[in-house]
């Protein structure tokens, strides 16, 4: 089946982002297609490449990046959620004259239209929030 996974929650603040990661990985292992990962609201924090957890803790941001890279997933961070939370890609950092960009390179900043498209084109949508 074609699945879309929507994540509303930040890593570490709740378990929801981790559940979303495990669900996504399991879906891929079972041979399903992940049509889109959509990070919305606090979920955009899953795309912050500067996340640096202690060495002995599970690095969820890195895990997402690796999953996205390995399976060539379409991982969107919603631009309006991301900007106000300080997650910027290089173009937005330049546009707003910020000192640095920090969004992981395997994510794309885009709008809610991508979620609407995902609704229309997926067989199932699964949301994770807290």
């Amino acid at each position, binding site marked *: *089946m074609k*699945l879309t996974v929507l994540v509303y929650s930040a890593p570490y603040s*709740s*378990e*929801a982002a981790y*559940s979303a990661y*495990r*669900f996504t*990985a*399991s*879906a891929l*292992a*079972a041979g*399903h297609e992940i049509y889109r990962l959509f990070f919305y609201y606090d979920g955009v924090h899953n795309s912050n490449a500067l996340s640096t957890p202690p060495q002995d803790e599970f690095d969820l941001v890195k895990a997402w990046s690796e999953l996205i890279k390995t399976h060539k997933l379409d991982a969107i961070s919603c631009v309006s959620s991301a900007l106000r939370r300080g997650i910027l890609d290089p173009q937005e950092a330049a546009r707003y004259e910020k000192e640095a960009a920090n969004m992981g390179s395997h994510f794309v900043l885009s709008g809610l239209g991508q979620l609407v498209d995902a609704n229309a084109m997926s*067989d*199932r*949508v*699964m*949301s*994770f*929030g*807290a």
Partner: protein
Amino acid sequence: MSTLHTVNKTAATNALEACLRVASSGDSLLLLEDGVYQASKLVQLPVAKTLQLFALKEDVTARGIKLPATVTPIDYAQFVDLVCQQQRSVSWF
């Protein structure tokens, strides 16, 4: 054509209570994350008998709690299957 409801919170929020008000007979309910703490209380409610009840086994084990017999423990692979089998999912938090 039924619905999968997921609840990931304890009774500190009314997510489960809201879910149960609008669930339909024959729907599935998966407790995951902190939602698994509500398993024992859930099975005592009359409405629970009209639903298929599940709990995410990894979250149950993590918390050291014992599931009532009428709540089926499932893993992430079975969670994916459930999402595909049900017509739609609603995540309550």
